[in-house]
């Protein structure tokens, strides 16, 4: 910072030389105040989204900077919500970026007293084995003489904040594997 710049940035100098002799406004603006730009403007992209909480289906705009969500607010274009959000919708950024999220796979072995770490690929492979084993153990070709072609060995309970596409794959895969105990929050 040069001396002149330094002096010119000094509020009292601006106060004495500018339109704000009382020093109540522009003369007292700090560098931050003068250069303030909201992060909704500097975001590198704005992604169209929908609130994940209740079924009102409010439109959301998700602002992204450097691969991080920096702001989530209502989408004024939505005919349902007109840009508004409730406290939960307004807390979406904290939901998706907050420290409350668990981001690593955890494993509890039978009779174990605490969590252990497990890598995702191993977990997927072990889970596939477990499903196939339970499927086999609970298989029923028929019940009371009628063909059932199913397993009662494993079950699924899903929340209702899943996407349609996710529900579709749940139903498609587990039905093909013979599971019938496929349920979700819609009943709960």
């Amino acid at each position: 910072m040069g001396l002149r710049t330094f002096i010119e940035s000094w509020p009292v100098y601006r106060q004495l030389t500018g339109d704000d002799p009382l020093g109540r406004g522009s003369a007292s603006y700090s560098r931050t105040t003068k250069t303030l730009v909201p992060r909704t403007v500097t975001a590198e992209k704005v992604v169209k989204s929908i609130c994940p909480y209740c079924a009102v289906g409010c439109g959301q705009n998700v602002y992204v900077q450097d691969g991080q969500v920096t702001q989530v607010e209502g989408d004024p274009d939505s005919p349902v919500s007109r840009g508004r959000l409730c406290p939960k919708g307004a807390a979406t950024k904290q939901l998706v970026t907050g420290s409350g999220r668990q981001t690593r796979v955890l494993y509890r072995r039978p009779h174990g007293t605490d969590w252990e770490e497990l890598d995702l690929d191993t977990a997927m492979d072990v889970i596939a084995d477990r499903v196939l084993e339970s499927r086999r153990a609970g298989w029923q070709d028929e019940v009371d003489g009628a063909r059932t072609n199913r397993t009662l060995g494993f079950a699924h309970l899903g929340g209702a904040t899943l996407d349609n596409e996710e529900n579709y794959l749940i139903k498609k895969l587990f039905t093909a594997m013979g599971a019938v105990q496929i349920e979700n929050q819609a009943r709960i």
Partner: protein
Amino acid sequence: MAKAFLGSPVLRVGLDEALRGDTDPATLSGHADHPPRMGFFTDTSVCIGCKACEVACKEWNAIPEDGLTLTGMSYDNSVGLGADTWRHVAFIEQRKPLAGQVAGVHHEPTGQLVGSGTPPEQATVTPTTPAGDGGEPGDLRWLMSSDVCKHCTHAACLDVCPTGSLVRTEFGTVIVQEDVCNGCGYCIPACPYGVIDQREGDGRAWKCTLCYDRLSVGAEPACAKACPTDSIQFGVLDELRERADRRVRQLHEEGLPDARLYGHDPDDGVGGDGAFFLLLDAPEVYGLPPDPVVSTRDLPDMWKHVGLAALSLAGMVVGALFGRRS
């Protein structure tokens, strides 16, 4: 060091002038070609108490969580405005009818009702107002109101701020500049509404900025944008005042004679608020001072002395620096 040094020599003089009559605070604060004065009109008659304003404000301004304590004050667990709560929704349960509303409840008459200021641990029930008045057995209304910094026309916090951290923006709003504030705390007792507050572990003063950064690009403040029922309305203050006048007349016609505007009068003790309210009962019921007066009304003489001293000091410094250069 630089912050304190740069911040300190601001001269707050001429308050007498600024305090008289209807004023244009932005012009008085050196914003020559400024936009119209912007503000909030919070119409509490349509507030649903959802607290979206509180959360939207916190998300936008990255305000810390403010304590995880159940208060017992109806559904209000934020308690009041502070360094870490810039929008606060008050909940008031009253044994009073809301014009035309059938509340449907039926309670035994009781003298045990306690007022809204009663500490919950001493209250036998959720504090209701008015205290003592048992009301009719079927009377009940639940008032909700989102409070915020009033952005006073005559802002005492700004008057007393020795660092120039508190400033009047071109929108006529009052903001704290976090890179300037040195945590002296003078502003805290100065506020007639008890709004501005020091943050624990930080020391600096914080309050609503009316989302100054958003305003600068034509966006509305986060709370107003989120508000599901448009209880919080943001706009040109003059237009908001007209809208509020119409709304209060409408409510009077609908049989709500207690409906009133608060902070809307430029002749009140703070020269009118940039953020004003439509209330359904007396301000005290909502925890608002009935007749707020800018606390610096009697201060200017004192501050003139301080100011002049500072001015001469500053002048010497400036003169010395520039004199040498020229």
